[in-house]
């Protein structure tokens, strides 16, 4: 079985326009999804599922969201944490106040839609300001939103602590959110969102809306002159990006940390997700997954690997190492390979397609 890009001729535009035009890629993705949906919940350890797979998948959703805004539409945002918080708080509010017979994905979606509305509001300045100044404006959104959700007790049903537990909700009698839910159930719940949102992201990227985003990113003046409306296009990127972040925020609260709290969505989170996008690859859906896995797993890796070899490394050194590796990776990808790990993966495939004859 060789991976082949060469020699895969398309006989119709429909075939060439498929989400993954190369059959090998299609089988690979289907295989990954099947492994993720069946083998991991069946055989994965609780620790792996609960503490690694779930958060990596949720962060991938946030990274896909930021990638739409920054990677495709070219609008830099440091407000990811704030948009995630918007999703988390609103879906908590809905989940705790809706009739029991409504399915649990409804509050998650409403949280996403609320985040989208918030994203549109904070995206409005993007018509006038760009680059660094826009980043500062979204940074203001980050701080304002966290302050807002902390200051209005309505969002947490006037809970005394201000940090309520995630609501326990069920599907077919199984808990899928909150502390009572078993890891496998949470995982499958999260995975469903991941798969659907990844498909949607790929579809948008190959449609009119995706091309409009990229056109605005690459040359907004030319885009306007061929009839693309800049404000509408930028706001749609803000809305859809924030929708993804909002869903990620809701899932983060409901299925990972089991509480709704502002510290989970602070400025550090915004930067983490931005680094995932940079390291994974700007403008690539696959990159969101690679970046999320890299950023989330690197510290775990550094903490564990020396131990396997009988080495003792002090935790403070590990923390420093982590910063150094992140820093180096970010600088490398920003300067050398803006298309990130996803591009490196593609290059590896291109090498492979000609293997074993390089010419």
């Amino acid at each position, binding site marked *: 079985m060789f991976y082949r890009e060469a020699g895969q001729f398309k006989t119709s535009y429909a075939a060439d326009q498929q*989400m993954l035009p190369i059959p090998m890629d299609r089988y690979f993705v289907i295989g990954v999804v099947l492994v993720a949906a069946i083998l991991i919940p069946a055989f994965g350890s609780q620790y792996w599922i609960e503490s690694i797979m779930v958060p990596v998948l949720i962060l991938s959703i946030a990274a896909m969201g930021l990638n739409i805004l920054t990677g495709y539409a070219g609008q830099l945002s440091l407000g990811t944490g704030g948009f995630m918080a918007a999703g988390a708080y609103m879906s908590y509010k809905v989940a705790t106040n809706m009739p029991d017979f409504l399915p649990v994905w409804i509050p998650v979606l409403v949280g996403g839609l609320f985040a989208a509305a918030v994203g549109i509001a904070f995206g409005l300045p993007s018509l006038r300001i760009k680059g660094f100044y826009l980043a500062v404006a979204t940074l203001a959104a980050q701080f304002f939103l966290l302050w807002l959700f902390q200051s209005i007790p309505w969002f947490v049903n006037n809970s005394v602590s201000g940090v309520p537990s995630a609501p326990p909700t069920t599907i077919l009698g199984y808990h899928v959110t909150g502390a009572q839910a078993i890891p496998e159930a949470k995982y499958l719940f999260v995975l469903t969102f991941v798969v659907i949102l990844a498909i949607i992201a790929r579809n948008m990227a190959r449609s*009119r*809306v995706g091309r409009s985003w990229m056109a605005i990113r690459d040359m907004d003046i030319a885009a306007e*002159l061929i009839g693309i409306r800049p404000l509408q296009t930028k706001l749609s990127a803000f809305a859809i990006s924030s929708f993804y972040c909002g869903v990620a925020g809701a899932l983060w609260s409901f299925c990972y940390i089991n509480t709704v709290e502002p510290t989970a969505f602070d400025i550090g989170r915004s930067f983490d997700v931005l680094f995932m996008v940079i390291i994974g690859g700007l403008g690539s859906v696959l990159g969101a997954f690679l970046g999320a896995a890299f950023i989330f797993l690197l510290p775990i890796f550094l903490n564990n690997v020396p131990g396997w070899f009988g080495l003792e490394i002090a935790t403070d050194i590990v923390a420093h190492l982590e910063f150094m590796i992140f820093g180096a990776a970010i600088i490398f990808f920003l300067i050398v390979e803006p298309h990130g790990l996803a591009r490196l993966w593609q290059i590896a495939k291109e090498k492979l397609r000609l293997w074993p004859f390089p010419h």
Partner: protein
Amino acid sequence: MNDTASTARDSASTDPGGKPGRIGDVILRVENITMRFGGVKAISDVSFDIRKGEVRSIIGPNGAGKSSMLNVVNGFYQPQEGSIWYNGKTYSPMRPHDAASNGIARTFQNIALFKGMTTLDNIMTGRILKQKASLLEQAFYIGRGRSEELEHREFVEEVIDFLEIQAIRKTPVGRLPYGLQKRVELGRALAAQPTLLLLDEPMAGMNLEEKEDMSRFIIDVNEHFGTTIALIEHDMGVVMDLSDRVVVLDHGSLLADGTPDEVRKNQAVIDAYLGVAHD
């Protein structure tokens, strides 16, 4: 290509009345346009018209206001005075979206492609105003989200075949050489099936062979699709060969307006421009 007389094109399409048969009524009138940038007067009180189906060239030395004029026509610049009459409506000023949605497309003197996108995607953006699928249809690639993609892809493939750029379909345009980028940019404009095509120095920086290719594309577009073309070009041989009528600008003012022969014989033009720039 240089000075091989202007007659080839004129005679082929001239009816007995002396008026080229493929040329129709006036579709665009530039009316008393004045455009200032601070103290600089880029265009002063210029008027001319463009007839349906013709190739209308705008010539003049550097800084004469040619690019600014095209920018006024497609709404990128809004002039202080004057208006644009186009297809029965007066625009003062024209806006970019009006221009694009009423069939005015263009290429730029300094290529304005979307560098990170492939040739195919760049040309597909030319179809954007014709795509109507809702966001949901696009998100799930169903209904019009799918059918429109296939339909427009088919048209874009025709453009790609016409321009002979099949081999670079999937290449990000930022990696293409200059001449090919110019061609892709023409493709993006053609994909919109424009009524009026504005070309700002489409052959600048090209070698002879590339210029010949580009001239051929321009003639084909004009003759086979009946597209009206406004062309800015410095190569006098090309201008005299391709144009039905020529406008000469100098320092923002209209110096002459007429057929290539008339313009060539115009003493003011010879003094101001042709005598200097033309060997």
